C-alpha cells in the first residue's frame, strides 16, 4: 500500500501539470494553518491546498478526512499516516523519522468534512488516472454537489477522453438538474435524456417532483418531455436487450437442433441421444482446455479454436458409431429407434458421470470473449454471446453450402426427398445415412463448444436443450434448413420475450402448449417439404 501511494505520488508528480512555485508555497502555509487546528481558518486553507495543484494535495486532504493527518505539537509540522500505520513526510511521501507519540491527529467537524469531500471530488476530477476521473464523475452524478460545479466545468473544459467527457457532462447535468436555475434545469434534463438509464430516469423523476410550484411551464414541459423520452428509450433498450438474449439463445438452439433436423429429414428417425452429442462437445471443449493448461498455457486463450474441431470429431465419431451400430439395424422402425437412442443417451450420460464426475466442469471464457460491447449507450451486449451468435450463423452457412454445393449434399437432398428413388439411382443410402448422422452429431458437438461458454458443463447438459431442439424441429419442419433456422431463432426470442411477462416456467409451458396446438394446423411443420415423399 505504501509503495502504491509512493508510486501514485510519483505518477501524479510526473503527469499532473506542475504546480507553480507560489501555489506550492501557499499550500505549505495552508498546511501550517491546518496544523494550528483553528476550525474556522481551516476551511479556506483546504480550498487553497485543493486549488494549488501540488501532487500531495489529494493524499493530504483524504488523510485529513480520514483522521490520518497528524500534527507535531512542538513545531506544527504535518505528517501523513498510511491506513497501515506507517508515518510519511507530506511533501515527499517518504517514510518520516519521527516519534509517533509526539503526533496528534488534526480534528475536523462535519462542516469541514463536507468541504473536504467536495474538494476531494474536484481533486479526483483532475486525477491523471482515467478510471479515477470516471469514478469521480459517477460519484458526482449519483450525489450531485453544487460546490463541484465549478471544478466540474473546469475539468470538462480540459478533458480530452470522450468517455470521460460524457461522464463529466452527465455529472454536470445532474448537478444543474438539482441545483441550477429553472432554465438550466430544463437544459440539463434534455441533455440527460440523451443517455437513458434507470438512474437517469430516477433523477429526472425526482427533479420533476422537486420543482417549485411556481416554476415556469416551459421547464415543467421540458422535464416531462425528457422523462417520457427516457422511458421510451429504456423500453426500447430493454426490448433490444431481451431480443438479443433471445437471438443468442436461438443460435444455441440452432446449433443443437440443426443436426436433429437433418437426420430426421434424411432418415425419418429421432435421435434421443442427440442432446448427449452436445454434451460430448462441451466435455471435449473442457478436455482441450485442460490439455492447453497443461502443455500450452501461453495459448490458453485460443483453446476454443482447437476445441471446435475436436468436439466435431468426437461427437461425429460417436454419431457415426451409433448409426452403424444401432440405427441402421432398426431401419424402417422409427419408434424403436427412438427408444434405442434413448437408451444410448442414458448410457452416455452415466458413463460421463462415472468417468469424469457428476459435478460441473468449468470452461474458462477466454479474455477475448469476455466483456461487452455497447453499440448504443445503455445497450450492453456481452461479447461471448455475440461470438456465439456469429459462430452459429457461420456454422449454419457452412452447412448450407455443404448441402447445396457438394456431392454429399446432393445425395442428402435426394435421400430426403425420395429414398427409394435415390436408391434406384445408385446412391448408396447406408453411406449417406451414416455420414449424415455423423455430420448432424458433429454439429451438435460444435453446439456443445458454444454452450460451454454460457452453461455449466455437466452430464445433464444435453437434456436441458433436447426438448427445445425437438420443438425447433417440429416448428421448423423436417429436413428444412431455413425452417430450422427460423424455428430456432423464433423459439429463442419467444422464450425470452415471454420470460418477463409470464415467468420462465410458465413461458415454457405456454410454448409447449402452443406446440401441441400448432401441430394440429400443420402436422408437417411450419416449412414442410411438400410432394409425394412427404405424404408417405
Amino acid at each position, binding site marked *: 500500500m505504501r509503495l502504491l501511494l509512493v508510486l501514485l505520488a510519483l505518477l501524479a508528480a510526473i503527469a499532473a501539470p506542475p504546480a507553480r512555485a507560489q501555489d506550492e508555497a501557499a499550500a505549505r502555509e495552508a498546511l501550517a494553518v491546518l496544523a494550528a487546528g483553528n476550525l474556522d481558518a481551516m476551511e479556506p486553507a483546504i480550498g487553497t491546498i485543493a486549488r494549488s495543484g501540488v501532487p500531495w494535495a489529494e493524499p493530504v486532504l483524504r488523510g485529513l478526512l480520514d483522521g490520518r493527518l497528524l500534527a507535531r505539537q512542538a513545531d506544527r509540522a504535518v505528517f501523513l499516516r498510511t491506513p497501515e500505520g506507517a508515518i510519511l513526510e507530506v511533501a515527499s511521501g517518504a517514510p518520516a523519522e519521527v516519534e509517533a507519540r509526539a503526533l496528534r491527529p488534526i480534528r475536523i467537524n462535519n462542516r469541514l468534512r463536507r468541504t473536504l469531500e467536495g474538494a476531494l471530488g474536484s481533486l479526483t476530477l483532475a486525477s491523471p488516472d482515467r478510471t479515477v476521473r470516471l469514478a469521480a464523475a459517477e460519484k458526482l452524478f449519483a450525489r450531485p454537489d453544487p460546490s463541484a460545479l465549478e471544478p466540474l466545468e473546469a475539468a470538462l473544459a480540459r478533458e480530452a477522453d470522450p468517455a470521460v467527457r460524457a461522464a463529466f457532462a452527465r455529472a454536470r447535468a445532474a448537478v444543474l438538474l438539482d441545483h441550477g436555475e429553472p432554465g438550466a434545469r430544463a437544459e440539463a434534463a434534455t441533455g440527460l435524456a440523451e443517455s437513458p438509464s434507470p438512474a437517469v430516469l430516477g433523477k429526472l423523476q425526482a427533479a420533476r417532483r422537486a420543482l417549485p410550484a411556481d416554476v415556469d411551464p416551459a421547464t415543467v414541459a421540458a422535464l416531462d418531455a425528457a422523462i417520457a423520452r427516457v422511458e421510451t428509450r429504456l423500453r426500447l433498450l430493454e426490448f433490444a436487450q431481451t431480443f438479443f438474449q433471445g437471438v443468442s439463445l436461438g443460435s444455441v438452439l440452432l446449433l443443437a437442433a440443426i443436426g436433429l433436423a437433418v437426420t430426421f429429414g434424411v432418415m425419418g428417425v429421432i435421435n434421443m441421444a442427440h442432446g448427449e452429442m452436445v454434451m460430448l462437445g462441451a466435455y471435449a471443449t473442457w478436455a482441450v482446455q485442460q490439455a492447453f493448461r497443461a502443455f500450452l498455457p501461453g495459448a490458453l486463450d485460443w483453446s476454443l479454436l482447437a476445441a471446435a474441431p475436436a468436439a466435431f470429431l468426437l461427437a461425429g465419431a460417436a454419431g457415426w458409431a451409433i448409426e452403424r451400430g444401432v440405427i441402421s439395424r432398426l431401419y424402417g*422402425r422409427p419408434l424403436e429407434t427412438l427408444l434405442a437412442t434413448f437408451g*444410448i443417451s442414458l448410457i452416455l450420460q*452415466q458413463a460421463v458421470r462415472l468417468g469424469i464426475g457428476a459435478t460441473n466442469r468449468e470452461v474458462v471464457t477466454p479474455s477475448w470473449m469476455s466483456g461487452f460491447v455497447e453499440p448504443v449507450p445503455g445497450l450492453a451486449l456481452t461479447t461471448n454471446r455475440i461470438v456465439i451468435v456469429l459462430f452459429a450463423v457461420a456454422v449454419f452457412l457452412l452447412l448450407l453450402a455443404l448441402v447445396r454445393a457438394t456431392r454429399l449434399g446432393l445425395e442428402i437432398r435426394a435421400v430426403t426427398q425420395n429414398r427409394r428413388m435415390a436408391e434406384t439411382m445408385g446412391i448408396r443410402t447406408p453411406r449417406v445415412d451414416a455420414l449424415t448422422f455423423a455430420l448432424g452429431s458433429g454439429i451438435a458437438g460444435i453446439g456443445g463448444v458454444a454452450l460451454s461458454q454460457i452453461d455449466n458443463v455437466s452430464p445433464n447438459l444435453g437434456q436441458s436443450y433436447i426438448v427445445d431442439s425437438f420443438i425447433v424441429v417440429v416448428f421448423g419442419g423436417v429436413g428444412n434448413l431455413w425452417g430450422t433456422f427460423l424455428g430456432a431463432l423464433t423459439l429463442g426470442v419467444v422464450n425470452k420475450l415471454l420470460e418477463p411477462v409470464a415467468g420462465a416456467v410458465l413461458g*415454457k*409451458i405456454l410454448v409447449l402448449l402452443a406446440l401441441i396446438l400448432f401441430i394440429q394446423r400443420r402436422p408437417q411443420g411450419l416449412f414442410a417439404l411438400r410432394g*409425394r415423399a412427404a405424404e408417405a
Partner: protein
Amino acid sequence: MARAGLGRPALLLVLVGCAVLLVPVLNRLVPEGSAFHLEDRLVPLFGKYLAYAVLAVALDLVWGRAGILSLGHGAFFALGGYAMGMYLMRQIGPRGVYAHPVLPDFMVFLNWQELPWYWYGFDRFPFALAMVVLVPGALGFVFGWLAFRSRVSGVYLSIITQALTYALMLAFFRNDMGFGGNNGLTDFKDILGFPIASPDTRLGLYLATGVLLLLALAVAIHLRRSPLGRLLVAIRDGEARARFLGHDTLRAKLFVWTLSAVLAGLAGALYVPQVGIINPSEFSPAASIEIAIWVAVGGRDTILGPVLGAFLVNGMKTWLTGAAPELWLFVLGGLFVLVTLVLPKGLVGIVELLPRRRAPAAEPAPRPAEATGG
C-alpha cells in the same frame, strides 16, 4: 400376430390371479419363521409393481396394438395419482403439522387462506374416484382428438406426448398451482377410514390393485378378440388403407387412447396410497419412456408381456439401485438398446416362437402398408 394363449384367455386370467394371490399367501399363511415368509414391508412393494403392470398393459393397448407410441403415459398415471393424493390429503384433516381443520399443510405453509376451488369435493371418496377416471380420461380424449384429427402420428406424436407430460411436470412444480409444488402430496394418514400404513390396509390395497390388473387384462383380452382389436392392428400397419375401407380410424384410435389413459389413471390412483407420495417427478419424460421399456422387454402386443416386463424391469431396478446404484442406468440403457435390436417381440416373443413355427424369427420387419398412390 401373436396368438398364443388367445384361445385360453380364462386360463390366463386364472394364472395371473394365482400369481397375484401368492403375495397374501406368503405373507399371511406362511409362518413368520419360514424361509418363504414374505415380510409386511414388502407387500406395498409388490403392490407398486402391480400398479406398474396395469400401467404397462395400458400402454400396450395403444403402442402394441395400435402402434401409437406414447411417451407421455406417465402424465395420465400421475394425474390419477394426484386425484387420489388430493383425497388422501383431505383425509388428514386437522392432524397435519399445522393442525388446520381444512387446509393441507403445504397451503398453510404458503399462507393460503382458503382452499382453492378445484380442491372442493375431494374429501369424498366417490368424487375423488370419479376424478381419477375423468381427469386422465378427459385429458386423453382432448389431446387424442386434437392429435388424431390432424393425423399426427409416428415419431411426431411421440414427441408431442412427451411435450405434454413435460409441460405438466413444469406446471406441477410450481407452488402456486396448488398441488404442493416440488414436494407433491404426502404424509397421508388413512384411506376410507383405514390407517394407511397398517399391514391390513396395505394388503387390501395390494389386492385391489391385483383386481384392477385382472380387469385391465380382461379388457385387453376382449379388445384383442373383438373386431376393433383387428382394426387397430390394421391402423398400426396401414391407417390410410383402413380409412379407404370406410373405417373411422379417428374414432377407433380415440377410443383405445382414452381407455388407456383411464386405465393409467386408475393405476396411478392405486399406486399413490401404497408408496405414500405423489410428486411432479412422475410427470418427467424419462419416467414415461421407462414404461415403454417394460412393455418392450415383456413383449409388445401380447397379453402377459407388459405384466412380465413391468415386474422384471422394476424388480431389477429395486435390486440394483440398492446393490449397485451406479450400474442401474447402464442396465436400463442397455435394455433399451438390446431389446429393440435383438428382441423385438420381447420375452414372451421368445417363448411363443419356440414350439410353433419353423423360422418365424426371420420374418421381416412389418412394412407399413402405406396407401400412397403412384
